[in-house]
C-alpha cells in the first residue's frame, strides 16, 4: 500500500531536515537515533535490510553528539545524524562482511575515505546494511544471508547489489546510505525501492577503503530520500584523496546550490531507441508522465540518437568479468566452496576472456565516450528508464531455482551497464508507481563530472512531485 505520510516521527524526516533540526537543537541526536532504531526493530524481521544492528553503540554515540552540541561543539553538516551503509565500506575495528561468507569475520583496519568524510561531518553509525555477495548481483538475493525484501511488496526484490541500502532508505530505517555502482547497483535498488540514488562519475568520490569489484567501473554514491539529500552527501564526500589517485583533483562544485535551481530553460534528451524499446507498459506510461512533468517545469524535450548501446553493454560485461575474476582469483582457487553458486559462476566468466580482448575493450572506452558526448552535445541531460520493468518477485528472479533467471538478470541490467562503461554520472529518481503499488524510477544521465546538473533537474522534479515523499506502510 502506498501512503503519503506527513508525520512528526523523526525517522520520517529528510536528511537535510533532521541535520538542521539537530543543529538547531529542536531535536536531539538521541531522539533521531531512537526513532530509526524503533523502525529498524519493526521492519528488520520483514526486510532483512541490516547486516548488523548496533543499537547500544548508536545511542551512546548519539548521547555524545548531544553533549558535544550542548557545549557548543558542532562536528559538521551532519552532526549527530545516524546512518547505516552498505557493508563494504571499511570501518576500522568493525566486521565488514561484503555480503560474503569469506569475509564473515573480516575486521577492517582502516576507514574508507567516503565513510571517514561522513564521520568528519558528524554522522554516527546505526550498523551495517545487507548487500549482494561481493556486490556481484543485481537482484538482492544473497545465498549466505538471505534475500532483502522490498518494503513496498515484501515478496518482490529490492534490486542489487546495494539491496539493504535501497530497502532501508525506502522504509525510513536510515536517513541515507552509501551504495556502490559498478553495473547499476545504486540505480536499480533506487528504482525498485522508490528512493533517489546517485551513481557518480568514475573519479568523483574516492574509492579508498571500499571493497573493490572492478577498478575501471566501481563508483561510490549515496541512496537517499531526495536529490537534495544526495547533493548534501556528495558535497561532503567528493574531491581528491591521496589514498586514491583515481579520485580527481580540482574544485568540487556547489551541489547544494545546484539542487536549489529550477530546470526552466534546460534541454533534456529522450533516446530514440534502446532505452525506450521493450518497456513494460507501465514503465512506458510512467516515462511519458515523467516527460510531461519535465515539460511543465520548463524543460525543453528533444529526441537524441545515441550510439549503439548494445556494444557498450557488452563492453561493460567483458571489463567487469575480467576485473572481478582478477580480484577474486586467489579465493577462486583456495575457497571456491565458500562462494554462493551464482557469484562463483559469474566470477568464472572472467576466466574466458583473453588479455588482448580485455585491453581492446579498454582501448575503446575513450572513443566510445567521445561518441556519446557528441551525440548529447545539444542537451543538458538524458532521461531514460533504469530498468524496463518494476521489481519482479524474489521467486521469479532467483537464479538458483529459475531456468529463466539469467535472462531476468540480463534484462534488469540492460539500461544501467552502458553508463558504467562510459563512466558517466546518473541520478535515479522515483517518478511513479505501477497499479500494483511498485515504485518506478528513471535515470538522468549527464556529462562526465556534471552531477550538479542531474541534482538540479532531480531536485526540481521532486519539488513538483511527491513520489519521493511516499513511504511504504508497515502492514
Amino acid at each position: 500500500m502506498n501512503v503519503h505520510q506527513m508525520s512528526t516521527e523523526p525517522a520520517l524526516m529528510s536528511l537535510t531536515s533532521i541535520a538542521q533540526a539537530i543543529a538547531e537543537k529542536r531535536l536531539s541526536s538521541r531522539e533521531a537515533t531512537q526513532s530509526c532504531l524503533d523502525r529498524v526493530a519493526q521492519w528488520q524481521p520483514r526486510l532483512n535490510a541490516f547486516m548488523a544492528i548496533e543499537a547500544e553503540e548508536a545511542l551512546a554515540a548519539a548521547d555524545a553528539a548531544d553533549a558535544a552540541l550542548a557545549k557548543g561543539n558542532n562536528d559538521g553538516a551532519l552532526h549527530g545524524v545516524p546512518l547505516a551503509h552498505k557493508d563494504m565500506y571499511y570501518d576500522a575495528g568493525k566486521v565488514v562482511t561484503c555480503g560474503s561468507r569469506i569475509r564473515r569475520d573480516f575486521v577492517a583496519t582502516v576507514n574508507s575515505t567516503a565513510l571517514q568524510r561522513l564521520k568528519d561531518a558528524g554522522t554516527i553509525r546505526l550498523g551495517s546494511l545487507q548487500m549482494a555477495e561481493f556486490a556481484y548481483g543485481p537482484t538482492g538475493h544473497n545465498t549466505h544471508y538471505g534475500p532483502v525484501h522490498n518494503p513496498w511488496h515484501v515478496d518482490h526484490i529490492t534490486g542489487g547489489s546495494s539491496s539493504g541500502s535501497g530497502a532501508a532508505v525506502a522504509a525510513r530505517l536510515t536517513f541515507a546510505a552509501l551504495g556502490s555502482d559498478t553495473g547499476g547497483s545504486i540505480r536499480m535498488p533506487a528504482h525498485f525501492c522508490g528512493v533517489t540514488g546517485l551513481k557518480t562519475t568514475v573519479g568523483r568520490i574516492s574509492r579508498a577503503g571500499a571493497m573493490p569489484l572492478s577498478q575501471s567501473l566501481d563508483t561510490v554514491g549515496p541512496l537517499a530520500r531526495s536529490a537534495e539529500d544526495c547533493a548534501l552527501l556528495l558535497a561532503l564526500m567528493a574531491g581528491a584523496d591521496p589514498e586514491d589517485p583515481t579520485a580527481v583533483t580540482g574544485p568540487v562544485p556547489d551541489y547544494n546550490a545546484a539542487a536549489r535551481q529550477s530546470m526552466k530553460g534546460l534541454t533534456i534528451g529522450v533516446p530514440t531507441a534502446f532505452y525506450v524499446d521493450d518497456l513494460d507498459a507501465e514503465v512506458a506510461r510512467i516515462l511519458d508522465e515523467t516527460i510531461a512533468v519535465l515539460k511543465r517545469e520548463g524543460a525543453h524535450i528533444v529526441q537524441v540518437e545515441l550510439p549503439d548501446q548494445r556494444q557498450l553493454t557488452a563492453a561493460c560485461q567483458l571489463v567487469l568479468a575480467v576485473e572481478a575474476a582478477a580480484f577474486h582469483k586467489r579465493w577462486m582457487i583456495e575457497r571456491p566452496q565458500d562462494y554462493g553458486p551464482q557469484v562463483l559462476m559469474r566470477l568464472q566468466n572472467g576466466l574466458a576472456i583473453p588479455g588482448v580482448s580485455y585491453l581492446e575493450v579498454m582501448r575503446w572506452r575513450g572513443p566510445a565516450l567521445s561518441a556519446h558526448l557528441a551525440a548529447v552535445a545539444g542537451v543538458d541531460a538524458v532521461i531514460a528508464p533504469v530498468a524496463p520493468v518494476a521489481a519482479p518477485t524474489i521467486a521469479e528472479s532467483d537464479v538458483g531455482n529459475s531456468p529463466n533467471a539469467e535472462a531476468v538478470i540480463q534484462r534488469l541490467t540492460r539500461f544501467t551497464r552502458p553508463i558504467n562503461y562510459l563512466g558517466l554520472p546518473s541520478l535515479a529518481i522515483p517518478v511513479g508507481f505501477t497499479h500494483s503499488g511498485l515504485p518506478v524510477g528513471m535515470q538522468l544521465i549527464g556529462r562526465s563530472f556534471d552531477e550538479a546538473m542531474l541534482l538540479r533537474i532531480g531536485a526540481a522534479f521532486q519539488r513538483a512531485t511527491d513520489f519521493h515523499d511516499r513511504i511504504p506502510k508497515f502492514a
Partner: protein
Amino acid sequence: MTRPTPKEIKAIADVAGVAVSIEVATRIANSIGPAFEGFAPVAGTLPLDLEPATFVVVQAAKTPKKAAK
C-alpha cells in the same frame, strides 16, 4: 573477436591457474558468449595510436552544451 569454445575456455582457465571442468567451461561459454558477439563490431577496428588512457583525456575535456538542432 569470436566467442571462445568450451575447450578454449578450459585451456585459458588452466593457464590462469583456476582449473575448471568442461561442464563449467561450457556454462561459461554460454554465459559470456553474447558479450563477445555484442562487442564483435568494434573488435579489430581500433587504430594503433589508441591507448586505454584516452578515456581519462576525453573524460576530463570540457564539453559544454551546444545549441540543439
